[in-house]
């Protein structure tokens, strides 16, 4: 009986092996689809009701389009519409391109803009607030006027960024189908979504910019980093998103191509500055901390040189000042400043970081703590779970004048954000729930930035604000993240720069044979 058992086991193993050898070539032969492996699965593909932006954008941006677009170098260009701005900034008129059709065949008209924005406002309390000060006036099928109570510099780079959905399609199929089978004006049409596995798209042959060269795309959802990298190596994926930084060098030497895009979130140290009794209330202490931490070393040694080392902004951002440099590494100067401020022997400092959400946060906080220890500042490093952390910031710290808190690694808005005005507003405006800083001069400057629609003029104001921030240091930027795309050597792809989210525009992909 035992012998029989061994025979059975041996046979089944042989059969399995044979099955593999015979059938594998057919199973593994690559289909014509372009396979892109991503680590984020969207919750929905409908931007008006989506919750997690970063997951929806890489895929959703192939199906939908926005009124305002970005060229590959990050410059703002007309997308579905061109626009004019009145001199006082209170009137923006959009003119839609003619002849654009949705995948459902319905033509794109101004009623679709109103529909999309009204729907977003209905579904999302935040969109409702953002769109409330705007009075939409349809002039005709292709022109729409937006009347603003106050000029809003954030509108074009950010708030106008809502992919346009079709009213006629919605009226025809109803809520359920509208969400499940999304329809847009973009280069790719939605085919199917297997939950947890993949999303299939196919080329929109009637796309107004010309049919895309890649005809079928499959976004495979693979959350595990090592598995994604393995997929590129075995040829199962043509492009992989979010290559772990430690694998970039080895992929390059194995012959694969990599491209990088500036992304969010950055990593900064953030000081709670509403309590005058703490050591870091003194500007010199904060500057000492900036001198004490070697950000370049952290970037190069911990993160393989991938993230961006900037003072406040990247070179493509409005208001970038090439004269403004990050604080150099100078521990001697740091100790001198500390002594000047009255802390020759250093002091104790709480050092919180948020766990679970962003890569590299914990390591950065720990590295920074080590640098600070070398100049006498003892950090009590403590990780807080993301939900608790957000709640603590918004509800307790923001209002408190006696808490002692420093965030060792905050992934809040900073460089590489949609628009520096918004990033500075969120992090440094005393009214913002994210902010732990109060400076009436900064508040006034931010208010002025928000009203200045002219990019050049606003750029000057942003430069001024950044210089103030580098002097005052309510936050110290350690690094700004970059996302790496890995791909087979026969693939040509350039990601759009200057957006912040990780995008994957499949119609920018060229496959060489």
């Amino acid at each position, binding site marked *: *009986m035992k012998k029989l058992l061994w025979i059975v086991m041996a046979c089944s193993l042989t059969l399995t092996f044979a*099955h593999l050898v015979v059938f594998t070539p057919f*199973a*593994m032969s690559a289909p014509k689809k372009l396979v892109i492996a991503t680590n984020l699965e969207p919750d929905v593909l409908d931007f008006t009701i989506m919750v997690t932006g970063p997951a929806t954008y890489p895929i959703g941006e192939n199906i939908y389009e926005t009124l305002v677009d970005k060229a590959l170098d990050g410059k703002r260009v007309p997308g579905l519409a061109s626009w004019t701005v009145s001199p006082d900034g209170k009137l923006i008129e959009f003119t839609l391109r003619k002849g654009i059709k949705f995948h459902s065949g319905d033509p794109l008209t101004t009623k679709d803009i109103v529909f999309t924005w009204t729907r977003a406002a209905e579904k999302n*309390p935040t969109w409702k607030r953002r769109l409330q000060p705007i009075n939409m006036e349809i002039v005709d099928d292709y022109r729409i006027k937006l009347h603003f109570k106050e000029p809003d510099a954030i509108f074009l780079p950010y708030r106008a960024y809502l992919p346009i959905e079709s009213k006629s399609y919605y009226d025809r199929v109803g809520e359920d189908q509208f969400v499940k089978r999304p329809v847009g004006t973009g280069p790719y049409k939605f085919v199917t979504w297997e939950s947890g*596995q993949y999303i299939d798209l196919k080329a929109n042959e009637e796309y107004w910019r010309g049919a895309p060269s890649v005809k079928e795309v499959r976004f495979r959802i693979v959350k595990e980093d090592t*598995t994604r990298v393995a997929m590129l190596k075995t040829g*199962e994926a043509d492009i992989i998103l979010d290559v772990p930084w430690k694998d970039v060098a080895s992929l390059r030497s194995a012959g694969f191509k990599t491209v990088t895009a500036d992304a969010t979130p950055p990593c900064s140290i953030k000081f709670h500055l509403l309590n005058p009794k703490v050591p870091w209330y003194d500007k010199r202490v904060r500057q000492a901390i900036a001198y004490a931490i070697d950000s370049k070393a952290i970037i190069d040694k911990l993160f393989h040189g991938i993230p961006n080392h900037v003072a406040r902004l990247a070179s493509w951002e409005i208001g970038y000042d090439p004269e403004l440099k990050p604080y150099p590494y100078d521990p001697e100067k740091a100790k001198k400043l500390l002594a000047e401020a009255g802390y020759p022997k250093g002091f104790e400092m709480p050092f919180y970081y948020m766990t679970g959400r962003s890569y590299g946060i914990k390591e950065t906080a720990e590295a920074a703590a080590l640098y600070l220890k070398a100049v006498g500042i003892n950090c009590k490093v403590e990780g807080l779970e993301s939900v608790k952390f957000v709640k603590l910031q918004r509800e307790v710290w923001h209002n408190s004048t006696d808490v002692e808190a420093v965030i060792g690694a905050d992934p809040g808005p900073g460089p590489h954000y949609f628009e520096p005005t918004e990033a500075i507003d969120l992090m440094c405006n005393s009214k913002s729930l994210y902010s732990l800083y109060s400076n009436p001069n900064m508040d006034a400057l931010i208010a002025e930035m928000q009203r200045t629609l002219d990019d050049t003029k606003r750029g000057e104001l942003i430069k001024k604000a950044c210089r103030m921030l580098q002097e005052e240091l309510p936050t110290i930027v350690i690094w700004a993240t970059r996302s790496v795309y890995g791909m087979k050597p026969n693939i040509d792809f350039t990601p759009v720069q200057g957006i912040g989210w990780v995008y994957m525009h499949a119609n920018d992909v060229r496959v060489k044979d």
Partner: protein
Amino acid sequence: MRRYAIKRILLGIVTIIVVSIIVFFASRLSGDVVHLLLPDDATKEDEIRLRAKLGLDKPIPIQYLVFVKNLTQGDFGESIRYRLPVVEVILKRLPGTLELASAAFLLSIVFGVPLGVISATRRDSASDKAGKIFALIGQSMPSFWLGIMAILVFSVWLQLLPTSGRGDMEHLILPATTLGWFSVASIMRITRSAMLDTMDSDFIKMARLKGNSERIVVWKHGLRNALIPVVSMAGIQLAQLLGGAVIIEAVFGWPGLGSLILEAVYGRDYTLVQSGVLLTSMIFISLNLIVDLLYGFIDPRIRYG
């Protein structure tokens, strides 16, 4: 037998109710989903409005009563993240979990039981030692390491099997084997110890004295009696496989319930967590019930206990 069965069923129902209460309260007390759903520039008013929209502004016991009321009408709620009915989201992932769990389970029985018998009857032989090492590896190596190693060896180096995803047989082999290896070890060990116990009994000696061949003594008389603890363990293994292949699902990109519920926990998708856990506990409890009833069937002594 009937009283035994009814008692077991009632116990099962009570357990499910208790589990649902615990999960409901625990997920809400663990943190506020609203903060995860709000974008960076959200204000306090946005927060209040969103909380009201999700029905989370009411006190937790009231929320529970609403939940139960909806359940009785067959409404398991809508996933906060996916905006789809929870039942739909779970049903889409269920086949994946069933496929993976049953494949791993089958492997664990097909390899585990015979290996356990061989190990017991040929104690300290070469095959016993080999079997024990096999079991040791399966039980002590962390499954994510085994999984990643499997991908490295069979997909990247040998290019024999796909790295991830669900599809045809090729896609099932690595995840099922990695998942099943741990269970093979458990089944093997319990079969072995049960067999060792059984083979010592008087009735086995009697069977040998009666002149039966060793093969019949071992497989017909010995194994059948040794199966009782094995069935019990197998039931627990299957339930565990159905509910918790999270790591394997993550490593191999396999769409299953485990990773769905885990993500729901991270994302504080309360409705999905509630119903997901409710569903898996119902599966677990039903399986245990089946095992208990099988027990009663196999071993007459238990029926009257």
